[in-house]
Protein backbone atom coordinates (compact mmCIF):
# COMPACT_ATOMS: atom_id res chain seq x y z
CA UNK A 1 0.00 0.00 0.00
CA UNK A 2 1.50 3.31 -0.94
CA UNK A 3 1.01 6.35 1.22
CA UNK A 4 -0.75 9.30 -0.32
CA UNK A 5 1.19 12.44 0.47
CA UNK A 6 -0.54 15.72 1.09
CA UNK A 7 0.58 18.82 -0.78
CA UNK A 8 0.60 22.37 0.52
CA UNK A 9 -0.95 25.20 -1.55
CA UNK A 10 2.64 26.12 -2.53
CA UNK A 11 3.44 22.78 -4.17
CA UNK A 12 3.63 24.20 -7.70
CA UNK A 13 5.77 27.10 -6.53
CA UNK A 14 8.24 24.71 -4.88
CA UNK A 15 8.61 22.81 -8.13
CA UNK A 16 9.07 26.08 -10.04
CA UNK A 17 11.76 27.22 -7.56
CA UNK A 18 13.68 23.96 -7.92
CA UNK A 19 12.79 22.62 -4.48
CA UNK A 20 13.66 18.98 -3.82
CA UNK A 21 10.43 17.46 -2.54
CA UNK A 22 10.58 14.64 -0.01
CA UNK A 23 8.00 12.89 2.19
CA UNK A 24 7.79 14.50 5.63
CA UNK A 25 5.10 13.77 8.24
CA UNK A 26 2.70 12.65 5.50
CA UNK A 27 3.40 15.70 3.34
CA UNK A 28 5.43 16.26 0.21
CA UNK A 29 7.72 19.08 1.35
CA UNK A 30 10.84 20.84 0.02
CA UNK A 31 13.90 19.67 1.98
CA UNK A 32 16.08 22.18 0.12
CA UNK A 33 16.24 24.46 -2.92
CA UNK A 34 19.88 25.51 -3.44
CA UNK A 35 21.48 23.69 -0.49
CA UNK A 36 20.92 23.33 3.24
CA UNK A 37 24.05 25.23 4.28
CA UNK A 38 23.41 28.16 1.92
CA UNK A 39 19.78 28.41 3.05
CA UNK A 40 20.83 28.16 6.69
CA UNK A 41 23.36 30.97 6.34
CA UNK A 42 20.84 33.15 4.48
CA UNK A 43 18.57 32.96 7.53
CA UNK A 44 21.47 33.87 9.84
CA UNK A 45 22.72 36.75 7.64
CA UNK A 46 19.83 38.03 5.47
CA UNK A 47 16.51 36.18 5.34
CA UNK A 48 14.87 32.93 4.30
CA UNK A 49 11.26 32.10 3.44
CA UNK A 50 9.86 28.74 4.56
CA UNK A 51 6.60 27.08 3.60
CA UNK A 52 5.36 25.55 6.84
CA UNK A 53 1.81 24.96 5.65
CA UNK A 54 2.07 21.33 6.73
CA UNK A 55 1.68 22.54 10.31
CA UNK A 56 -1.86 22.05 11.63
CA UNK A 57 -4.23 24.57 13.20
CA UNK A 58 -7.18 24.22 15.54
CA UNK A 59 -9.47 26.95 16.81
CA UNK A 60 -10.62 26.68 20.40
CA UNK A 61 -13.77 28.68 20.97
CA UNK A 62 -16.29 29.02 23.76
CA UNK A 63 -17.05 30.46 27.16
CA UNK A 64 -14.75 27.90 28.86
CA UNK A 65 -11.94 28.02 26.28
CA UNK A 66 -9.31 29.50 28.60
CA UNK A 67 -10.15 27.18 31.50
CA UNK A 68 -10.15 24.21 29.11
CA UNK A 69 -6.68 25.08 27.85
CA UNK A 70 -5.38 25.60 31.39
CA UNK A 71 -6.62 22.09 32.20
CA UNK A 72 -5.04 20.30 29.22
CA UNK A 73 -1.82 22.31 28.73
CA UNK A 74 1.24 22.59 30.98
CA UNK A 75 1.56 26.36 30.55
CA UNK A 76 -0.99 28.90 31.75
CA UNK A 77 -3.22 30.23 28.98
CA UNK A 78 -5.90 32.05 30.98
CA UNK A 79 -3.39 34.82 31.73
CA UNK A 80 -2.49 35.26 28.05
CA UNK A 81 -3.65 38.62 26.67
CA UNK A 82 -5.50 38.92 23.34
CA UNK A 83 -2.87 39.68 20.68
CA UNK A 84 -0.24 37.50 22.33
CA UNK A 85 0.92 33.91 21.91
CA UNK A 86 2.53 31.39 24.25
CA UNK A 87 4.54 28.18 23.85
CA UNK A 88 3.25 25.17 25.76
CA UNK A 89 3.33 21.41 26.02
CA UNK A 90 0.26 19.19 26.05
CA UNK A 91 0.98 16.14 28.20
CA UNK A 92 -0.38 12.70 28.97
CA UNK A 93 -1.22 11.82 32.57
CA UNK A 94 2.21 10.10 32.84
CA UNK A 95 3.99 13.33 31.79
CA UNK A 96 4.88 12.18 28.27
CA UNK A 97 4.22 14.78 25.59
CA UNK A 98 1.23 14.62 23.25
CA UNK A 99 2.65 17.63 21.38
CA UNK A 100 4.31 21.00 21.74
CA UNK A 101 2.26 23.95 20.56
CA UNK A 102 2.02 27.69 20.19
CA UNK A 103 -1.33 29.13 21.24
CA UNK A 104 -2.56 32.51 19.97
CA UNK A 105 -5.28 34.36 21.85
CA UNK A 106 -7.74 36.37 19.73
CA UNK A 107 -10.29 37.27 22.42
CA UNK A 108 -11.57 36.20 25.83
CA UNK A 109 -13.21 33.17 24.28
CA UNK A 110 -11.18 32.40 21.15
CA UNK A 111 -7.72 30.87 20.59
CA UNK A 112 -5.81 29.43 17.62
CA UNK A 113 -3.40 26.55 18.23
CA UNK A 114 -0.51 25.65 15.94
CA UNK A 115 -0.01 21.87 15.88
CA UNK A 116 2.86 19.74 14.61
CA UNK A 117 2.03 18.25 11.20
CA UNK A 118 2.64 14.67 12.33
CA UNK A 119 0.44 15.14 15.41
CA UNK A 120 -2.36 17.40 14.14
CA UNK A 121 -5.13 14.82 13.89
CA UNK A 122 -4.01 13.02 17.05
CA UNK A 123 -4.03 16.33 18.94
CA UNK A 124 -7.49 17.32 17.73
CA UNK A 125 -8.92 13.92 18.69
CA UNK A 126 -7.15 14.07 22.08
CA UNK A 127 -8.51 17.55 22.84
CA UNK A 128 -12.05 16.58 21.85
CA UNK A 129 -12.06 13.60 24.22
CA UNK A 130 -11.22 16.00 27.05
CA UNK A 131 -14.03 18.51 26.51
CA UNK A 132 -16.51 16.79 28.84
CA UNK A 133 -19.09 19.32 29.97
CA UNK A 134 -16.95 22.36 29.18
CA UNK A 135 -18.52 24.98 26.93
CA UNK A 136 -15.86 24.83 24.24
CA UNK A 137 -15.48 23.75 20.63
CA UNK A 138 -12.32 22.31 19.04
CA UNK A 139 -12.50 23.26 15.37
CA UNK A 140 -10.16 21.62 12.85
CA UNK A 141 -8.78 24.40 10.60
CA UNK A 142 -5.79 22.51 9.21
CA UNK A 143 -6.95 22.81 5.62
CA UNK A 144 -8.08 26.42 5.85
CA UNK A 145 -4.67 27.85 6.75
CA UNK A 146 -1.35 28.03 4.98
CA UNK A 147 1.74 29.11 6.94
CA UNK A 148 4.87 30.95 5.89
CA UNK A 149 7.87 31.69 8.09
CA UNK A 150 10.07 34.62 7.10
CA UNK A 151 13.18 34.45 9.25
CA UNK A 152 16.47 36.31 9.44
CA UNK A 153 17.84 39.74 10.37
CA UNK A 154 16.25 41.31 7.26
CA UNK A 155 12.89 39.53 7.61
CA UNK A 156 11.13 42.54 9.08
CA UNK A 157 12.46 44.85 6.37
CA UNK A 158 11.20 42.49 3.65
CA UNK A 159 7.82 41.90 5.26
CA UNK A 160 7.35 45.67 5.67
CA UNK A 161 7.53 46.00 1.87
CA UNK A 162 4.39 43.87 1.56
CA UNK A 163 2.20 45.09 4.40
CA UNK A 164 1.12 48.29 6.10
CA UNK A 165 0.78 46.53 9.47
CA UNK A 166 2.91 48.31 12.13
CA UNK A 167 5.43 45.47 12.48
CA UNK A 168 7.65 47.36 14.92
CA UNK A 169 4.76 47.35 17.39
CA UNK A 170 4.64 43.54 17.46
CA UNK A 171 6.63 42.23 20.41
CA UNK A 172 8.18 38.78 20.62
CA UNK A 173 5.26 36.30 20.76
CA UNK A 174 2.85 39.10 19.86
CA UNK A 175 0.75 39.17 16.70
CA UNK A 176 -1.51 41.34 14.54
CA UNK A 177 -4.24 40.37 12.09
CA UNK A 178 -4.36 42.19 8.77
CA UNK A 179 -3.44 42.35 5.12
CA UNK A 180 -0.18 41.06 3.64
CA UNK A 181 0.51 41.40 -0.10
CA UNK A 182 -3.16 42.06 -0.77
CA UNK A 183 -4.37 39.03 1.18
CA UNK A 184 -6.63 39.91 4.09
CA UNK A 185 -7.10 37.90 7.29
CA UNK A 186 -3.41 37.12 7.78
CA UNK A 187 -2.10 36.49 11.30
CA UNK A 188 1.40 37.97 11.54
CA UNK A 189 3.31 36.92 14.66
CA UNK A 190 6.83 37.63 15.84
CA UNK A 191 7.68 33.99 16.40
CA UNK A 192 9.95 31.47 14.75
CA UNK A 193 11.83 28.22 14.95
CA UNK A 194 15.26 29.32 13.77
CA UNK A 195 16.92 31.37 16.52
CA UNK A 196 17.03 34.36 14.17
CA UNK A 197 14.60 37.28 14.21
CA UNK A 198 11.50 37.01 12.07
CA UNK A 199 7.82 36.36 11.67
CA UNK A 200 5.40 33.54 11.07
CA UNK A 201 2.36 34.29 8.94
CA UNK A 202 -0.86 32.30 9.07
CA UNK A 203 -2.81 33.01 5.93
CA UNK A 204 -5.89 31.74 4.10
CA UNK A 205 -4.73 28.77 1.99
CA UNK A 206 -6.03 30.35 -1.22
CA UNK A 207 -3.74 33.38 -0.71
CA UNK A 208 -0.55 31.42 -0.03
CA UNK A 209 1.01 31.54 -3.50
CA UNK A 210 0.25 35.22 -3.98
CA UNK A 211 1.84 36.16 -0.65
CA UNK A 212 4.86 33.87 -1.07
CA UNK A 213 5.57 35.30 -4.52
CA UNK A 214 5.26 38.86 -3.23
CA UNK A 215 7.66 38.18 -0.35
CA UNK A 216 10.21 36.45 -2.59
CA UNK A 217 10.08 39.32 -5.10
CA UNK A 218 10.32 42.01 -2.42
CA UNK A 219 13.12 40.21 -0.60
CA UNK A 220 15.28 39.11 -3.49
CA UNK A 221 17.29 42.38 -3.69
CA UNK A 222 17.95 42.06 0.06
CA UNK A 223 19.16 38.47 -0.16
CA UNK A 224 15.98 36.60 0.81
CA UNK A 225 15.92 33.07 -0.62
CA UNK A 226 13.45 30.20 -0.26
CA UNK A 227 14.56 27.78 2.45
CA UNK A 228 13.54 24.16 3.03
CA UNK A 229 12.99 21.81 5.92
CA UNK A 230 16.67 20.78 5.96
CA UNK A 231 17.76 24.28 6.95
CA UNK A 232 14.80 24.56 9.31
CA UNK A 233 16.14 21.54 11.19
CA UNK A 234 19.77 22.71 11.39
CA UNK A 235 18.61 26.21 12.43
CA UNK A 236 16.38 24.95 15.22
CA UNK A 237 19.12 22.64 16.54
CA UNK A 238 21.66 25.48 16.67
CA UNK A 239 19.07 27.51 18.57
CA UNK A 240 18.33 24.63 20.96
CA UNK A 241 14.63 24.26 20.05
CA UNK A 242 13.07 20.82 20.51
CA UNK A 243 11.43 18.84 17.71
CA UNK A 244 8.58 16.49 18.55
CA UNK A 245 9.65 12.87 18.05
CA UNK A 246 13.23 13.80 18.91
CA UNK A 247 13.78 15.91 22.07
CA UNK A 248 10.18 15.56 23.23
CA UNK A 249 7.85 12.63 22.69
CA UNK A 250 5.39 10.38 24.45
CA UNK A 251 8.39 8.97 26.35
CA UNK A 252 10.35 12.20 26.92
CA UNK A 253 8.62 14.69 29.22
CA UNK A 254 9.04 18.47 29.25
CA UNK A 255 11.00 18.17 32.50
CA UNK A 256 13.47 15.78 30.84
CA UNK A 257 13.65 18.05 27.79
CA UNK A 258 14.64 21.09 29.87
CA UNK A 259 11.27 22.74 29.24
CA UNK A 260 10.30 22.99 32.89
CA UNK A 261 9.69 26.72 32.39
CA UNK A 262 6.57 25.81 30.38
CA UNK A 263 5.14 23.72 33.23
CA UNK A 264 3.16 25.85 35.67
CA UNK A 265 2.80 23.93 38.92
CA UNK A 266 1.10 27.04 40.31
CA UNK A 267 -2.01 25.80 38.47
CA UNK A 268 -3.96 23.54 40.86
CA UNK A 269 -4.81 21.00 38.14
CA UNK A 270 -3.64 20.07 34.68
CA UNK A 271 -3.10 16.79 32.90
CA UNK A 272 0.29 15.35 33.79
CA UNK A 273 0.78 17.59 36.83
CA UNK A 274 1.48 14.85 39.39
CA UNK A 275 3.89 12.88 37.22
CA UNK A 276 5.75 16.02 36.12
CA UNK A 277 5.97 17.24 39.69
CA UNK A 278 7.53 13.97 40.85
CA UNK A 279 10.10 14.32 38.06
CA UNK A 280 10.77 17.97 38.83
CA UNK A 281 11.24 17.28 42.53
CA UNK A 282 12.99 13.92 42.46
CA UNK A 283 14.92 14.49 39.24
CA UNK A 284 14.04 12.69 36.00
CA UNK A 285 15.69 9.35 35.11
CA UNK A 286 17.31 10.92 32.05
CA UNK A 287 17.60 14.35 30.50
CA UNK A 288 18.16 15.94 27.11
CA UNK A 289 21.56 17.58 26.62
CA UNK A 290 23.02 19.56 23.72
CA UNK A 291 26.44 18.61 22.46
CA UNK A 292 29.09 19.38 19.87
CA UNK A 293 31.87 17.22 18.43
CA UNK A 294 35.38 18.22 17.37
CA UNK A 295 35.16 16.20 14.16
CA UNK A 296 33.50 16.22 10.77
CA UNK A 297 31.31 13.17 11.42
CA UNK A 298 27.74 13.81 12.47
CA UNK A 299 26.29 11.82 15.39
CA UNK A 300 22.79 11.02 14.19
CA UNK A 301 19.56 9.89 15.83
CA UNK A 302 20.06 6.52 17.54
CA UNK A 303 23.85 6.75 17.97
CA UNK A 304 24.80 5.42 21.43
CA UNK A 305 26.40 7.62 24.10
CA UNK A 306 28.93 5.99 26.42
CA UNK A 307 30.54 6.79 29.75
CA UNK A 308 33.58 4.55 29.65
CA UNK A 309 32.18 1.28 28.28
CA UNK A 310 28.71 1.77 29.71
CA UNK A 311 25.92 2.92 27.41
CA UNK A 312 24.30 5.87 29.17
CA UNK A 313 22.23 7.44 26.43
CA UNK A 314 21.40 7.94 22.80
CA UNK A 315 21.47 10.72 20.25
CA UNK A 316 18.07 12.30 19.50
CA UNK A 317 19.05 14.74 16.71
CA UNK A 318 22.29 15.52 14.93
CA UNK A 319 23.45 17.81 12.17
CA UNK A 320 26.35 19.96 11.06
CA UNK A 321 26.15 23.46 12.50
CA UNK A 322 26.91 25.75 9.55
CA UNK A 323 27.67 28.61 11.96
CA UNK A 324 30.15 26.64 14.10
CA UNK A 325 31.21 24.45 11.18
CA UNK A 326 31.15 21.38 13.38
CA UNK A 327 28.66 18.67 14.30
CA UNK A 328 26.08 19.44 16.97
CA UNK A 329 23.17 17.51 18.36
CA UNK A 330 21.07 16.48 21.29
CA UNK A 331 21.12 13.28 23.34
CA UNK A 332 19.02 11.70 26.05
CA UNK A 333 21.50 10.89 28.83
CA UNK A 334 20.88 8.99 32.08
CA UNK A 335 20.76 10.94 35.34
CA UNK A 336 24.21 11.33 36.83
CA UNK A 337 25.96 11.56 33.48
CA UNK A 338 24.44 14.74 32.03
CA UNK A 339 27.28 16.91 33.35
CA UNK A 340 30.02 14.42 32.58
CA UNK A 341 33.08 15.53 30.64
CA UNK A 342 33.96 11.89 29.87
CA UNK A 343 31.16 11.03 27.45
CA UNK A 344 31.75 9.59 24.00
CA UNK A 345 29.45 8.78 21.12
CA UNK A 346 29.77 5.80 18.79
CA UNK A 347 29.66 6.73 15.12
CA UNK A 348 29.93 3.64 12.94
CA UNK A 349 32.41 2.01 15.31
CA UNK A 350 34.45 5.13 16.14
CA UNK A 351 34.12 6.64 19.62
CA UNK A 352 34.31 10.42 19.58
CA UNK A 353 34.37 12.69 22.66
CA UNK A 354 31.08 14.48 23.13
CA UNK A 355 31.18 18.01 24.52
CA UNK A 356 28.05 18.98 26.41
CA UNK A 357 26.87 22.54 25.96
CA UNK A 358 24.65 24.20 28.52
CA UNK A 359 23.81 27.12 26.23
CA UNK A 360 22.31 26.96 22.74
CA UNK A 361 24.95 27.28 20.02
CA UNK A 362 23.26 30.37 18.59
CA UNK A 363 21.29 32.91 20.58
Amino acid sequence: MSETLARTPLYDLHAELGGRLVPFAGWEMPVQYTGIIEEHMAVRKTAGLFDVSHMGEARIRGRDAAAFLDRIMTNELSTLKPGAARYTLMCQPDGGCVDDLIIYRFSETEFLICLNASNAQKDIAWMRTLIGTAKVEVIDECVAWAQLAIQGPLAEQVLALTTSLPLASIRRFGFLVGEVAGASGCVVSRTGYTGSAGFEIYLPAASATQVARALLAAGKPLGLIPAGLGARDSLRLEAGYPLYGHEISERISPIQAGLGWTVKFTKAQFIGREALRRQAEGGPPSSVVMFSLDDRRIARQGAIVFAGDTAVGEVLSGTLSPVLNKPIGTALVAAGFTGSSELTVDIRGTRLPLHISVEPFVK
Partner: protein
Amino acid sequence: MSQVPAHLRYTKEHEWIRLEADGTATIGITDHAQAALGDVTFVDLPKVGKSFAAGEVFGTVESVKAASDLYSPVSAEIVEANTGLNDTPDLVNREPYGGAWMIRVKLKNPAEAAQLLDAAAYSATL
Protein backbone atom coordinates in the same frame (compact mmCIF):
# COMPACT_ATOMS: atom_id res chain seq x y z
CA MET B 1 19.89 16.70 -15.30
CA SER B 2 22.95 15.11 -13.82
CA GLN B 3 26.12 14.63 -15.82
CA VAL B 4 27.25 11.13 -16.85
CA PRO B 5 30.58 11.41 -18.70
CA ALA B 6 30.84 8.87 -21.53
CA HIS B 7 34.43 7.77 -20.80
CA LEU B 8 33.75 6.41 -17.29
CA ARG B 9 32.28 3.17 -15.94
CA TYR B 10 29.67 3.12 -13.19
CA THR B 11 28.03 1.08 -10.43
CA LYS B 12 24.33 0.97 -9.57
CA GLU B 13 25.39 2.46 -6.21
CA HIS B 14 26.55 5.64 -8.02
CA GLU B 15 30.32 5.26 -7.94
CA TRP B 16 32.33 6.02 -11.07
CA ILE B 17 35.63 4.42 -12.04
CA ARG B 18 38.16 5.56 -14.60
CA LEU B 19 40.67 2.98 -15.86
CA GLU B 20 44.10 4.59 -16.23
CA ALA B 21 46.77 3.64 -18.78
CA ASP B 22 49.14 2.37 -16.06
CA GLY B 23 46.72 -0.32 -14.88
CA THR B 24 45.43 1.63 -11.90
CA ALA B 25 41.93 3.07 -11.63
CA THR B 26 40.46 6.21 -10.06
CA ILE B 27 37.15 6.05 -8.19
CA GLY B 28 34.66 8.67 -7.04
CA ILE B 29 30.91 9.26 -6.79
CA THR B 30 28.67 10.52 -9.55
CA ASP B 31 27.04 13.89 -10.08
CA HIS B 32 23.69 12.24 -9.39
CA ALA B 33 25.01 10.91 -6.06
CA GLN B 34 26.37 14.27 -4.89
CA ALA B 35 23.12 16.00 -5.82
CA ALA B 36 21.07 13.42 -3.93
CA LEU B 37 23.30 13.73 -0.85
CA GLY B 38 23.24 17.52 -0.74
CA ASP B 39 26.00 19.46 1.04
CA VAL B 40 28.81 16.97 1.68
CA THR B 41 30.46 17.53 5.08
CA PHE B 42 32.82 14.59 5.52
CA VAL B 43 34.47 11.88 3.47
CA ASP B 44 35.98 8.91 5.32
CA LEU B 45 38.54 7.14 3.11
CA PRO B 46 40.70 4.05 3.70
CA LYS B 47 44.46 4.00 4.25
CA VAL B 48 46.90 3.21 1.44
CA GLY B 49 47.60 -0.51 1.25
CA LYS B 50 44.14 -1.68 2.33
CA SER B 51 42.35 -4.13 0.03
CA PHE B 52 38.67 -4.45 -0.79
CA ALA B 53 36.61 -7.01 -2.67
CA ALA B 54 34.26 -5.83 -5.39
CA GLY B 55 31.10 -4.54 -3.73
CA GLU B 56 32.75 -4.11 -0.33
CA VAL B 57 32.38 -0.85 1.59
CA PHE B 58 35.61 1.17 1.35
CA GLY B 59 34.49 4.38 3.02
CA THR B 60 31.69 6.76 3.91
CA VAL B 61 30.48 10.01 2.47
CA GLU B 62 28.44 12.15 4.78
CA SER B 63 26.18 15.10 4.08
CA VAL B 64 24.11 17.30 6.35
CA LYS B 65 21.24 14.90 5.68
CA ALA B 66 22.74 11.42 5.83
CA ALA B 67 25.80 9.18 5.86
CA SER B 68 26.19 6.82 2.88
CA ASP B 69 28.55 3.93 2.34
CA LEU B 70 30.98 3.93 -0.56
CA TYR B 71 31.25 0.62 -2.43
CA SER B 72 34.33 -0.51 -4.25
CA PRO B 73 33.34 -1.17 -7.89
CA VAL B 74 36.15 -3.73 -8.25
CA SER B 75 38.50 -5.87 -6.17
CA ALA B 76 41.37 -3.53 -5.50
CA GLU B 77 44.20 -2.29 -3.30
CA ILE B 78 44.33 1.37 -2.35
CA VAL B 79 47.38 3.16 -3.72
CA GLU B 80 46.24 6.70 -2.92
CA ALA B 81 43.36 8.38 -1.09
CA ASN B 82 42.34 11.96 -1.80
CA THR B 83 43.27 13.46 1.57
CA GLY B 84 42.45 16.93 0.25
CA LEU B 85 38.78 16.09 0.83
CA ASN B 86 39.41 16.24 4.61
CA ASP B 87 39.60 20.01 4.36
CA THR B 88 37.25 20.56 1.43
CA PRO B 89 34.54 17.87 1.51
CA ASP B 90 32.28 20.28 -0.40
CA LEU B 91 34.48 19.70 -3.46
CA VAL B 92 32.40 16.52 -3.87
CA ASN B 93 29.43 18.74 -4.70
CA ARG B 94 31.38 20.99 -7.05
CA GLU B 95 33.69 18.59 -8.92
CA PRO B 96 32.44 15.03 -8.48
CA TYR B 97 34.34 13.82 -11.55
CA GLY B 98 37.42 16.02 -11.06
CA GLY B 99 39.04 17.33 -7.89
CA ALA B 100 36.79 15.18 -5.71
CA TRP B 101 38.06 11.82 -6.91
CA MET B 102 38.24 9.63 -3.80
CA ILE B 103 40.67 6.74 -4.23
CA ARG B 104 43.21 5.45 -6.70
CA VAL B 105 43.53 1.67 -6.73
CA LYS B 106 45.45 -1.21 -8.22
CA LEU B 107 43.01 -3.67 -9.81
CA LYS B 108 43.24 -7.25 -8.55
CA ASN B 109 41.06 -8.69 -11.28
CA PRO B 110 40.92 -6.40 -14.34
CA ALA B 111 38.19 -8.59 -15.88
CA GLU B 112 35.74 -7.25 -13.28
CA ALA B 113 35.86 -3.78 -14.80
CA ALA B 114 34.22 -5.05 -17.98
CA GLN B 115 31.13 -5.99 -15.99
CA LEU B 116 30.49 -2.43 -14.77
CA LEU B 117 27.87 -0.17 -16.32
CA ASP B 118 28.75 2.09 -19.20
CA ALA B 119 27.42 5.65 -19.34
CA ALA B 120 24.26 4.71 -21.24
CA ALA B 121 23.43 1.79 -18.92
CA TYR B 122 24.07 3.94 -15.83
CA SER B 123 21.96 6.81 -17.19
CA ALA B 124 19.12 4.35 -17.67
CA THR B 125 19.14 3.60 -13.92
CA LEU B 126 18.66 7.24 -12.93
